[in-house]
């Protein structure tokens, strides 16, 4: 019985299939969450295109592009970890997982540098901070930055969640059976890649409006 995590299954292969399916359903659900926020952004973008384009120019494309590359790399290392897990090369798996979470931390560090710069320049319309914006239509630029902070911080929260889960998984590594290790790596990997996909859309939508 201990070969499966859930009493409902009597066979680890079926359990792994169920886990994978559950992750995909969860990802579908998450896609709806981000979809709704993207919809809000799209409606606003259609209404205030020029203001949004102007405001978008105040974001740092260099840092954004760098961070995108970091996330792509982390997805790659995560996929590599899964590959090692399939071949039961556990030590290599752990190293790849550690690399993945380190890249996740790197993304967050760069992101917080960006936040810091934007707050210092007075472009964060949060908590009553003064909004100083040199450009046309500051009202809707403020709207843009509201959406920018909402979307990116929601994404960052998901990333923090992913890093925490990888950490927890490594902490429990010794107690898990090989089957459990494999389907945990698989489940976390799916989540990680999904968070990456979200950023693949967020980056052009926020940073690259008609440079």
């Amino acid at each position, binding site marked *: 019985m201990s070969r499966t995590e859930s009493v409902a299954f009597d066979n680890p292969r079926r359990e792994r299939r169920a886990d994978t399916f559950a992750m995909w359903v969860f990802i579908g659900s998450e896609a709806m969450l981000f979809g709704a926020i993207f919809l809000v952004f799209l409606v606003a973008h259609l*209404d*205030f295109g*020029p*203001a949004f384009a102007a405001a978008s120019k105040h974001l740092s494309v260099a840092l954004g592009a760098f961070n995108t590359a970091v996330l792509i790399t982390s997805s790659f290392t995560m996929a590599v970890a899964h590959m090692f897990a399939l071949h039961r090369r556990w030590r290599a798996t752990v190293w790849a997982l550690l690399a993945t979470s380190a890249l996740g931390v790197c993304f967050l560090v760069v992101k917080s540098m960006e936040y810091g710069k934007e707050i210092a320049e007075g472009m964060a319309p949060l908590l009553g901070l003064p909004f100083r914006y040199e450009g*046309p*239509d500051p*009202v*809707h630029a403020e709207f843009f930055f509201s959406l920018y902070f909402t979307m990116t911080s929601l994404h960052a929260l998901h990333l923090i969640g992913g890093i925490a889960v990888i950490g927890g998984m490594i902490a429990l590594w010794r107690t898990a059976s090989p089957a459990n290790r494999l389907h945990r790596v698989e489940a976390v990997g799916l989540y990680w890649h999904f968070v990456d996909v979200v950023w693949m859309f967020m980056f052009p939508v926020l940073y690259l409006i008609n440079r």
Partner: protein
Amino acid sequence: MSFGIPFFPQEASSEASQVDALFYTLLAFSAVLGLALTGLVVGYAVKYRVGSPADRTGQRSRNMWLEMSWTIASLIIAFIFFGWGATLFVRRDHPPADALEITGLGKQWMWEFRQPGGQREINELHVPVGKPVVVSLAAQDVIHSFFVPAFRIKQDAVPGRTTHIWFIATEPGHYHLFCAQYCGTQHSEMGGWVTVMAPEQYAAWLNSQGEGETLAASGEKLFRVLGCSGCHGASSKVRAPALEGIFGRPVALENQQTVIADERYLRDSILIPKKEIAAGYEPVMPSFDGLIDEGELQMLLAYLKSLSPQPSAGTKP
């Protein structure tokens, strides 16, 4: 009214009898279908109760023909009701051209109306019988909803845009006016009466209210006080689009698009001037967002519309 118990609301507009025709048809249909189903279920329940001598042979648990036919019948009936309701509904968008235009402003927790002659009313609305009336609605704070049950009409007043409702009152009288969209603490107190009067009495009532300043006239005054005329005026040094006859005309924009200068465009141009810049002009106009309230905005819109000769019946965005 029977024994003072209200079963049916009064019908006091041209819309009311048509909506009621659909309503009562639906009611008859629902009653027939509902009672038939009830009868069927009760009938079966009695006939096939345990121990009854009813014949139970030849039972089937599916019948393709029967299932297909009730599916198709439901579809046809549904489409008839859909078409009927939609036909009545789309007329809301097409008020008669000669309609009397009244502005209504919802705010927590009262309705403020301005007659075409400028007479101001709070929680009261006087209209003549037999004449189309358009009410242009705006909201100062939260969403409100203009609802006159006897007219069978309702329209939300949404902050940040202008909406319209029109009707032809058919019966002189005194009718409830409600706010139908929950709007905060005193929501249920927000409302009053619509008084429908014969045209002569309406004219007399208007006179007794004193010849107020029309909305457009107030708007014109505001236009000068706010300094709009400094740029938009004929003799100004700053080049700004002339506004004579602008309402309802197409405007070429800087980004090669063209929009019709409807209420939405004019409102946005005052509050968000950078959003749609007229082609050939510098985007120098400051935003008046926060400097004027909804009531003042309604005045400015009325003034701008008054600069156009054509009838200014509501066009929805």
